């Protein structure tokens, strides 16, 4: 029976929303025991949709179910003195704490990093915040749109005469969750080597800025300020989404798609795709620079063929010609995609709250330590089991419950 990579780790997760929960979802997929501490009203994402038939219900939020698979849930009001006492008992046996409150908030509650390190010298304490724990904007607030704006990616996305455009699906929290995951494991590697825990500080805004491919570099190495131009790379055209007969395709001829004068012999992959070998003689096919500037004229050469062929056929033919074209699927296309089906990517999970849903499965496969998925918890479902393990008896739990601590 194969083990899990992080099966020796215990994590207490005080975070809410997307970034922290995505980080701890990953930790749980890799086998860590994740105890999610929710305020008595539950993680804020329990109140965000989508909900079946748009009827809000704390056990049915699609966002919550997506982000909290494989975790235990304990309700605990860590803003109360009694809650802090319970949390500290839990932390005695914990390797990692994840929190996503604004900087300073956990200090006010007596559970900041400095306050806990003495009692838990091995604890890795990860704080995910909008702008980070230091710096002039540390007390400012951010969400995915703010992070996209600060990253330079948004400035370069969209049409030249319209407003900059944020990338869809509000991705910032996922970037920050991944950064926190890698950061926690780096701190763990440090602990294995040198002993001792430490504070890991992850900023939502920097997590997206780190995804900048070359916007800052174009200034720092050329003095050029790049600007959005149909979200196009500066390297050449086409590398863009174009319409097909039944939807859209990403047209990417790649380095060898168009004729390369002096280097290639025979028909180019693009002229073969478009079934018109004479196109190779067209100046737009022969010069990358010409294509870039006269892109509308190039579109006129491409669109008649593209819009009379279905997306799948276009992509398959282009791939046979070794051009990295791609499909533009929606969520429903992905759920039905044959490639993902053959790889068993989606996993069906029946949640204790009643929903049975197909989830995005493990983001990668490991031969020795496969990742695994399990249901998301109902609010406080593990209160008793987890708290009894750290020494509370039934009467204690009754008292805590009456006082609203759990």
């Amino acid at each position, binding site marked *: 029976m194969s083990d899990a990579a992080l099966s020796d780790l215990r994590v207490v997760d005080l975070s809410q929303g997307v970034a922290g929960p995505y980080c701890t979802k990953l930790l749980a997929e890799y086998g860590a025991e994740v105890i999610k501490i929710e305020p008595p009203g539950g993680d804020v994402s329990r109140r965000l949709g989508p909900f079946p038939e748009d009827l809000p219900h704390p056990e049915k939020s699609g966002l919550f179910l997506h982000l909290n698979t494989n975790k235990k849930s304990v309700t605990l009001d860590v803003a109360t003195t009694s809650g802090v006492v319970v949390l500290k008992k839990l932390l005695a046996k914990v390797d990692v704490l994840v929190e996503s409150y604004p900087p300073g908030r956990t200090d006010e509650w007596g559970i900041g990093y400095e306050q806990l390190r003495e009692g838990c010298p091995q604890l890795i304490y990860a704080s995910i915040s909008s702008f980070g724990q230091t710096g002039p904007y540390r007390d400012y607030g951010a969400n995915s749109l*703010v992070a996209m704006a600060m990253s330079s990616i948004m400035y370069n996305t969209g049409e030249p005469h319209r407003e900059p455009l944020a990338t869809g699906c509000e991705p910032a929290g996922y970037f920050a969750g991944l950064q926190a995951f890698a950061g926690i494991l780096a*701190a763990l590697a440090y602990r294995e080597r040198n002993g001792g825990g430490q504070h890991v500080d992850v900023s939502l805004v920097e997590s997206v800025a780190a995804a900048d491919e070359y916007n800052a570099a174009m200034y720092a190495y050329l003095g050029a300020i790049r600007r959005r131009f149909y979200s196009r790379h500066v390297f050449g055209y086409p590398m863009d989404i174009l319409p097909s007969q039944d939807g859209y395709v990403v047209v990417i001829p790649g380095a060898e798609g168009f004729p390369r004068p002096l280097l290639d012999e025979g028909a180019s992959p693009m002229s073969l795709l478009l079934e018109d070998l004479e196109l190779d003689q067209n100046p737009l096919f022969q010069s990358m620079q010409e294509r870039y500037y006269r892109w509308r004229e190039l579109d006129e050469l491409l669109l008649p063929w593209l819009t009379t062929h279905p997306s799948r056929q276009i992509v398959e033919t282009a791939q046979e010609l070794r051009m990295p074209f791609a499909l533009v699927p929606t969520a429903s296309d992905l759920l039905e995609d044959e490639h993902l089906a053959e790889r068993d990517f989606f996993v069906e999970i029946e949640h204790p709250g009643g929903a049975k849903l197909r989830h995005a499965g493990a983001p990668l496969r490991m031969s020795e330590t496969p990742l695994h998925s399990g249901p998301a918890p109902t609010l406080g479902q593990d209160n008793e089991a987890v708290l009894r393990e750290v020494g509370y008896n039934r009467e204690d739990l009754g008292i805590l419950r009456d006082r609203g601590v759990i």
Partner: protein
Amino acid sequence: MAELPLNGVRVLDLSHVFAGPTCTRILAELGADVIKVEARQRLDISRSLIMTDNDIGDQPWNRTCYFAVHNAGKRGITLDLTGEQGRDLLSRLIPHSDVLVESFTPRVMKAFGLEYETVRQLKPDIIMASMSGYGQTGPYRDWSAYGMGLEAASGISAATGYRDGPPIRSGLSFTDPLTGVLAAGAVLAALHYRQRTGRGQFIDLSQQEGAIAVLGAALMDYQMNGRLAQRTGNRSSWAAPQGCYRCRGDDDWLVISIENDEEWAAFCRAAGHPEWSQDERFADVLARHENHDALDSLIEGWTRDQDHYEAFHLLQRAGVKAAPVLNGKELLLDPHFRERRHFTVVDHPVLGRRPVPRHLVARFDRFEPRVDSAAPLLGQHNREVLQGMLGLSDEELTSLEAEGVIGSVPLMDLPADVPFEVLWEMIQDLLRLSLEKMLEMGAVQAVEPDYRQQLGL
């Protein structure tokens, strides 16, 4: 200086361009010895992307900012893996290594005879991470992929775009950095497991799959309600108003996101229009969703006269989420990014002192992830690695170079009957950006010759 967590870990990096190099760049920042392996016959493509000062110099392959940014802190060697000698040398390096990262389609590693089963014979506890576009199995496994295609293939593009417009790509290869961090995390987890058990393993990362988690809510909504994510520009199903508004200045913008009534009232006060919060059309969140277009006109009427940075501070201090839409220059100069040292300056032997950004942004109180060196020149560390690690003699190095297995100059299959000047002209054309034309088109906002001075370089 404090020890870094991956000191003593060696990584062989066969990956190209962006996703794989992001993964190994993070491992380098954490102290690993990353050896990037390229072939003189097939350089990392990013050695041809964006020449510094738009000048190809006499070694264009050592001049691109793209390569410099994503490969700082690594060592570099050349090995022709299509030939037996190159493969033999790599086989001899593998036993000295802990991690091997590659991002080819599966057929390439197979052709090199470098599948995991072979690699583990050479080093039983190796951690091998393959991060191709579509993974190692399944009908699309041999599809070649660029990040700009994988963003769409992961379902993100279908949900990106202006309202009622077509799908739009992000202005970047969006899935590359995402899956690069994902892969670095997987390698760290595998190293942790190896530490405990002594066992290595194979990691199959499909970049498409790695990014699908971002669609979580959309996948749920489709299953729960049969509804597909609409392209909504910068609007939100939650916050209202939310949008990107034009400010004073040529192309300056401010995003604003207001999630509740308190923030709305705070915004109206801060903008000097307390009367807006009394307007019935905007009284509650539902009304603000309903009358979003009218609201946008009012808000933009105010932002048009504002400086985007000043309005950002004004609104944030009032408790409203807002941000200037930064361009590449502003990102480099922003006081917050500067104070948190998002960029470090490294000294590149050809390009001089230049900033490179962090790829792992997590900060630690007991060590600082860092890169101490610039990106390697082509084959810069051939001697150091092949002599230092494998004990090759000077004569062996000379003969390998003569046979094209190693070296510091690319080998291209160029036609013999064309004069060098003509070829050089053609290469110039391929590698230089026509910045003037880009300025005219609007794909570049400005070119500032004094940029080094502005950046204090």
